[in-house]
């Protein structure tokens, strides 16, 4: 009975969603919009809670629960198994969308009535689209009656991991969060006569979404690093690209909104970015959920879902871009920019961000296009991205290290240089020092990355001098974080050591300057798996440095083998050991990595997210103050 009630909740939410939408067309219905929004959000939340309850109570009569859970599954993973499959992750998508909508409804009340009406209607329409998708093609409450299974098929072992508990919610908070700037942009374009500074209202949400997306991508990369057992942290996999493209456009958007929230220039450009960020999120959803691309993440896919998302995407794109074209025809005269000014540098950075996104989009969609056109099956690998994406981003990093020092509106190169002199001197010193030690050991691209990383880190830190506002703090944090991440990426790619060896218990191998001994092998038993656990001792000059316990787990419900890597994390280097397979003579294949500076990558990500978060809170507070005034 309870699962049916869940389904009923979703249907009710759909009805409320339609009411919210209708308010946008009919002024007399607009009074219902706010209560209907609350109703919609409440019923989506209730539906979500019912699905969670289904998982916690092992209700295997629900098909989705039976496919993704098991009585032996630990409590924590039962909870996150809710979004372990297609139906549940779509429900999570809608649930998070409703949370964002609720947030906007509660916080942003002091807007012109017409704007509010359009805003509700756009958000309502997005809800309706996704609820229809959920109900039409992927009902999470579908029953397996009367022959219900006694035991569930278990959650995919790859996903049974703490990193996975948080990865999708954060990623979706980011993805879906771009719906809010999108809705503000649409509302602004639908009501051209209202004098409404949409950028001021949209900015905190864009920053929040960007911040969450950064956390989500970092978590995903961290999870891939330790869970997949190949020591990689980014694969240019289509699904990773799907989350990366909104991130790039989102980065451009938060910068453009900073300008347009202060003055009317760039307004059209910001509008376009706000539309693109959300549309790329939808494209991402389509790529992941339709399974059109061969990918690590592709789950069982159903063409009906892909087709539905594609239609939805088409409606959104035609609607929003059509409105945008109308908007362009009535736009005010273009104001001129002086080249050496903060505005023009932000615009330049934006153009680079957008070009980079375009190359990623091309690489992601190219196999699809080619298959349709020539029926040839191809894949685009990481060499394409290193050849194209990296050189495009380098000028951006350079720009980032000095653009924060420019003044708004007008500046002179000479004055800019004098402001940059001190940080530049320090950078030169450090770079000479680094160059002295590492000139020969680093390939050119990594060296360039290191130099740019140092420039960004130092120039951001120098901005700490003088008066500090929270907004400026946010900028410094985010830029500093990106600098740290760039350093991490450059150094770990250039300096990592990888070795695959065949080892017997009791024997040892030398990797770089470390002796790695396979000391012992034990049997372990987990709640839903049995494991063989190795014990490795890493020592340097006969001094033990670390003990690592990698495992090979056999998950009984799905009869699958999983590698559980063991990592000794460190600020300057990680030791990473994964067990391969056991051979007949009792030896094991073992994969050993020493990865210098790899932590900096995620550390940088945290700083970027934190910076965006601080800036978002300040922007929210500023909006709040304006309302009071």
């Amino acid at each position, binding site marked *: 009975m309870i699962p049916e009630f869940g389904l009923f909740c979703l249907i009710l939410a759909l009805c409320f969603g339609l009411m919210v939408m209708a308010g946008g067309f009919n002024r007399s219905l607009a009074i219902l919009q706010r209560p209907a929004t609350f109703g919609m959000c409440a019923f989506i939340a209730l539906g979500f809670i019912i699905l969670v309850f289904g998982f916690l109570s092992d209700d295997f009569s629900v098909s989705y629960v039976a496919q993704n859970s098991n009585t032996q599954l630990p409590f924590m993973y039962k909870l996150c198994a809710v979004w372990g499959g297609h139906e549940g992750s779509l429900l999570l998508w809608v649930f998070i969308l409703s949370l964002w909508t609720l947030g906007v409804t509660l916080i942003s009340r002091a807007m012109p009535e017409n704007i509010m009406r359009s805003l509700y209607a756009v958000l309502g329409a997005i809800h309706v689209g996704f609820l229809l998708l959920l109900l039409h093609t992927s009902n999470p409450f579908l029953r397996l009656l009367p022959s219900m299974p006694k035991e569930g098929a278990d959650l995919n072992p790859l996903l049974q991991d703490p990193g996975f508990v948080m990865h999708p919610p954060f990623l979706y908070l980011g993805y879906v969060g771009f719906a809010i700037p999108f809705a503000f942009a649409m509302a602004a374009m639908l009501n051209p006569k209202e004098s409404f500074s949409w950028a001021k209202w949209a900015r905190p949400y864009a920053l929040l979404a960007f911040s969450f997306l950064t956390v989500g991508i970092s978590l995903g990369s961290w999870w891939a690093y330790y869970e997949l057992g190949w020591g990689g942290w980014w694969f240019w996999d289509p699904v990773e690209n799907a989350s990366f493209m909104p991130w790039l456009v989102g980065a451009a958007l938060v910068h453009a909104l900073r300008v347009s929230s202060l003055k009317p220039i760039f307004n059209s450009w910001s509008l376009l970015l706000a539309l693109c960020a959300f549309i790329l999120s939808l494209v991402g959803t389509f790529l992941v959920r339709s399974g059109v691309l061969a990918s690590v993440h592709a789950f069982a896919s159903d063409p009906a879902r892909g087709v539905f998302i594609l239609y939805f995407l088409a409606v959104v794109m035609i609607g929003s871009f059509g409105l945008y074209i109308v908007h362009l025809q009535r736009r005010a005269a273009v104001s001129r920019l002086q080249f050496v000014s903060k505005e023009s540098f932000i615009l330049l950075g934006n153009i680079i961000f957008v070009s980079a996104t375009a190359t990623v989009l091309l690489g992601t969609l190219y196999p699809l296009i080619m298959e349709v056109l020539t029926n040839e099956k*191809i894949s685009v690998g990481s*060499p394409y991205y290193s050849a194209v994406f990296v050189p495009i981003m380098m000028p951006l990093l350079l720009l980032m290290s000095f653009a924060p020092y420019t003044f708004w509106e007008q500046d002179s190169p000479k004055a800019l240089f004098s402001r940059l002199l001190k940080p530049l001197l320090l950078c030169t010193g450090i770079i000479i020092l680094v160059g002295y030690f590492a000139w020969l050991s680093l390939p050119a691209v990594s060296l360039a990355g290191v130099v740019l990383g140092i420039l960004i880190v130092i120039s951001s830190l120098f901005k700490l001098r003088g008066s500090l506002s929270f907004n400026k703090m946010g900028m410094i944090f985010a830029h500093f974080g990106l600098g740290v991440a760039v350093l991490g990426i450059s150094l770990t790619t250039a300096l990592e050591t990888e070795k695959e060896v065949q080892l017997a218990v009791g024997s040892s191998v030398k990797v770089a300057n470390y002796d790695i001994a396979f000391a012992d092998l034990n049997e372990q038993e987990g709640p839903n798996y049995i494991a063989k656990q190795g014990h490795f001792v890493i020592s340097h000059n006969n001094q033990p440095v670390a003990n690592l316990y990698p495992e090979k787990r056999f998950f009984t419900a799905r009869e699958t083998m999983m590698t559980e890597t063991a990592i000794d994390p460190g600020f300057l280097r990680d030791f990473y050991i994964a067990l391969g397979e056991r051979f007949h003579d009792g030896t094991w294949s073992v994969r050993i990595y020493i990865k210098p500076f790899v932590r900096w990558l995620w550390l940088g990500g945290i700083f970027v997210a934190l910076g965006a978060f601080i800036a978002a809170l300040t922007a929210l507070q500023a909006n709040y103050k304006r309302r009071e005034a």
Partner: protein
Amino acid sequence: MSLLHQKRIVLVLMVAVGLCVGVGLVLYALSKNINLFYTPTQLVTETIAPNKTIRVGGMVEKGSLKHHDALAVEFTITDFKHQTTIQYRGIMPDLFKEGQGVVALGKVGPNGHFIAEQVLAKHDENYMPPEIANLKSEKT
């Protein structure tokens, strides 16, 4: 034509040329870095440049997996018409099993064997590289 117009035309031309060069370079990089997918039958029927990185895929034949020393592995894949022997040095993915689908990235060696740099097995029982799913459905 005023000076302003001239300036504008130069600017537009520069942007256009820059854009063309950029797009050209990107497309060139793309064409250099795509990996075509072949089935064992296509490997037999089509000629492939010896140093080109390609992907091959098929089902691993039962009983064909052989371990040599120092992590060298050899196995045969089939599309139910032809077979290809794949050589690889390294650790096989967890989900590699005889009788299941696999995709390998690498080059065709001088003896007609496929020298793989990377072996990808399917990641869960629902997922299969689409190329292999097609093979399976053609067979049945």
